[in-house]
């Protein structure tokens, strides 16, 4: 009976052991079914290179620790394995600093975190993706103040000064904004931008002011965090008569002169110093590298020619150090000189030439011998103003813009005096030079009109000649004919000379018998008359015509006369 009880007892024990074993073995497998929730609302805050991970945990947080993992992508697709995130292992708070783990600020990172309690672990949280550079904030800058002589001298150090690893590489490009206010009720907040080393001078003396500074990177459109508020009291303002006042710049082309005033009664010598513009942005000791302007050291007159230091298009800062005999010195206010903006431009040089009705203009850019520098930066265009110079002063002034140094003006009237002046201007800098001297030139008279007149005259002459020639010829011919008819020039032959006296008795008279042969009876009566007439005719012919050929004509003529007389006689 006892053996059976023992066996039963053993069986029960085995079951208990088995159950116990099961209880021991099973839990690890059922880890996922624990009550541990995974953390949520993961956030990463980055200030400069300080990375802070924050999350929220809604579960039962007794004895719960958190551990995080991360991985990053080398080249967008190349991902690394999940690694432990240093600084965020077994933390009890709901935030941790993992700055030491992140070095690649431009690569995509993934972060995840889970809760742990002894052996229990929660599932991983959702992945938080980030590119450190894009979520980083600019930290506060360092500020040093010094209150002297009614002003506050401020020295700002950049947010990541003296750090080996920097998020913001181009720290020389930080700009700083200052917010300043009086430490009283109803104080006005004033904003202004300042250099790393600057002076705030528009302040009331013996007053406490509070200020804070932030860094700005315009390329990132980012404004950094403010520095802690710093309060300081301004001192009495003591105006030192030794200091140079009213420092100003007068510049023509590339010749720069600094002028200032002096109110000190005793002997003062001056030392003009300059600083190349970009150095002002350097926050370290290089910014105090003021150099003396050559030729303006230990001078006594209140002006300085500093053209020699202007070698680039960027800006420069100048200040005057006044030194008294007792080794006391005072620095004047600084003045900023932007060479291409502050100067006045002298007139360009103009040469004019005329040919026909085209006015040729040749321009030398302003600046004379130094014009190379100016021409490089200004990219001159030219305005030519021209007008007719007549007694009537209401002549319209015309304008022509040209880009090159050679131009022509063409819409001109002849025989007029034109005057012009030229101005150079730069579109980008929005600057115009002085006008050049007026140059006047007269356009030549119209050469065409006399030519036209000449041509017309010649044409007319030719036309007239062409018309006149045949006419004259015809007249000449007519004249000849008339002369031949009425004034024959034929001469009777020699043997007929002296014909007139012997005519009656001459047997040759019978030649006239030809007409006689026609009318016999009448002829006898008429012959005498005819003979008389013939005589007359002969005489006439002797006198005038020489052509014997005309004789027959005359015969005919006389014949006709005879017939007339015959007719008369017959009628009678």
């Amino acid at each position, binding site marked *: 009976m006892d053996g059976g009880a023992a066996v039963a007892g053993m069986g029960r024990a085995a079951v208990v052991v088995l159950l116990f074993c099961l209880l021991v073995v099973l839990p690890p497998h059922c880890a996922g079914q624990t009550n541990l929730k995974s953390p949520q609302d993961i956030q990463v805050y980055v200030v400069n290179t300080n990375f802070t991970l924050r999350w929220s945990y809604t579960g039962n947080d007794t004895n719960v620790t958190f551990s995080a993992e991360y991985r990053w992508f080398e080249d967008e697709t190349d991902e690394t394995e999940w690694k432990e995130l240093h600084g965020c292992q077994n933390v009890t708070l709901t935030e941790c600093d993992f700055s030491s783990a992140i070095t690649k600020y431009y690569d995509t990172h993934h972060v995840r975190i889970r809760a742990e309690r002894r052996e229990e672990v929660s599932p991983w949280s959702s992945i938080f993706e980030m590119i450190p550079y894009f979520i980083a904030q600019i930290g506060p800058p360092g500020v040093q103040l010094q209150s002297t002589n009614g002003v506050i001298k401020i020295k700002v150090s950049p947010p990541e000064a003296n750090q080996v690893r920097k998020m913001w590489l181009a720290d020389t490009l930080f700009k700083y904004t200052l917010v300043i206010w009086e430490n009283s009720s109803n104080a006005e907040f004033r904003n202004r931008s300042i250099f790393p080393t600057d002076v705030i001078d528009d302040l009331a003396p013996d007053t406490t002011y509070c200020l804070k500074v932030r860094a700005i990177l315009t390329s*990132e459109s980012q404004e950094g965090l403010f520095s802690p508020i710093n309060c300081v009291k301004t001192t009495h303002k003591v105006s030192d008569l030794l200091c140079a006042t009213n420092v100003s710049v007068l510049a023509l082309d590339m010749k720069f002169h600094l002028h200032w005033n002096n109110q000190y009664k005793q002997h003062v010598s001056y030392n003009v110093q300059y600083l190349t513009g970009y150095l002002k942005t350097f926050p370290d000791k290089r910014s105090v590298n003021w150099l003396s302007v050559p030729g303006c050291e230990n001078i006594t007159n209140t002006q300085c020619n500093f053209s020699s230091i202007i070698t680039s298009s960027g800006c420069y800062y100048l200040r005057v150090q006044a030194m008294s005999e007792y080794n006391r010195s005072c620095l004047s206010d600084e003045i900023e000189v932007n060479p291409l903006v502050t100067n006045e431009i002298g007139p360009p040089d103009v040469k004019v030439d005329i040919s026909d009705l085209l006015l040729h203009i040749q321009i030398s850019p302003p600046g004379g011998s130094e014009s190379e520098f100016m021409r490089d930066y200004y990219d001159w265009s030219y305005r030519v103003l021209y007008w007719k110079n007549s007694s009537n002063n209401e002549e319209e002034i015309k304008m022509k813009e040209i880009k090159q140094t050679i131009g022509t003006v063409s819409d001109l009237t002849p025989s007029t005096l034109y005057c012009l002046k030229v101005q150079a201007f730069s579109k980008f800098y*929005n600057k115009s030079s002085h006008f050049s001297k007026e140059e006047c030139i007269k356009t030549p008279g119209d050469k065409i009109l006399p030519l036209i007149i000449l041509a017309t005259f010649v044409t007319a002459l030719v036309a007239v000649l062409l018309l006149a020639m045949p006419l004259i010829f015809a007249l000449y011919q007519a004249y000849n004919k008339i002369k031949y008819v009425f004034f024959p020039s034929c001469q009777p032959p020699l043997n007929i000379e002296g014909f007139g006296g012997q005519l009656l008795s001459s047997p040759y008279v019978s030649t006239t018998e030809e007409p006689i042969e026609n009318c016999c009876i009448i002829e006898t009566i008429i012959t005498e008359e005819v003979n008389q007439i013939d005589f007359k005719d002969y005489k006439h012919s002797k006198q005038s015509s020489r052509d014997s050929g005309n004789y027959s004509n005359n015969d005919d003529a006389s014949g006709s006369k005879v017939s007339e007389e015959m007719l008369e006689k017959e009628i009678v």
Partner: protein
Amino acid sequence: MNAFGLIQIGLILLCITTISSLQCNHLPLQQRKVIEKSLQLLDKMGKKFPQQCLREKMSFRFPEQVLKPRQKETVKVAIEEIFHHIFYIFSKNLTLASWDGTALEQFQNGLYQQIEQLEACVIKKQTHYFWNKDVNRLKLKKYFQKIDCFLKDKQHNLCSWEISRAEMRRCLQLIDKVIRKL
């Protein structure tokens, strides 16, 4: 404030932006001159590339797609960024390079002036926003970080400076080419 006052203010703002943007229209031409001058000064700064530095030459692989003009405005902002970085690189410790200090000063001053002018010009806020989140921008930053690390590793010795100078020269020449097309 009544509507009329608002209109007045609006008109004034329009005026200011028009005036300032008018000048900015001529900026590319101005930029070309500055870049030409900068290239001249870069050459003037030092002598010919030393032979002994050839073996230390490294390929930095400038991300040229940054300057491929998809959008004119993006390229302009990219150029501004490149100027920033070049200015930063040349403001480091240059004593071992033993270059012509005057030429270097002129180079830096001219570059800084150019950066100021670019910032003063009215660049659309939207372009800045898109550029700020642009992937190519990160590539550009990595490129300059590589050069920065290279200089640090070599402790700013002569060869590292000469290699960097040659690289910056290449950068400026690329920008010059792109600006001419703008």
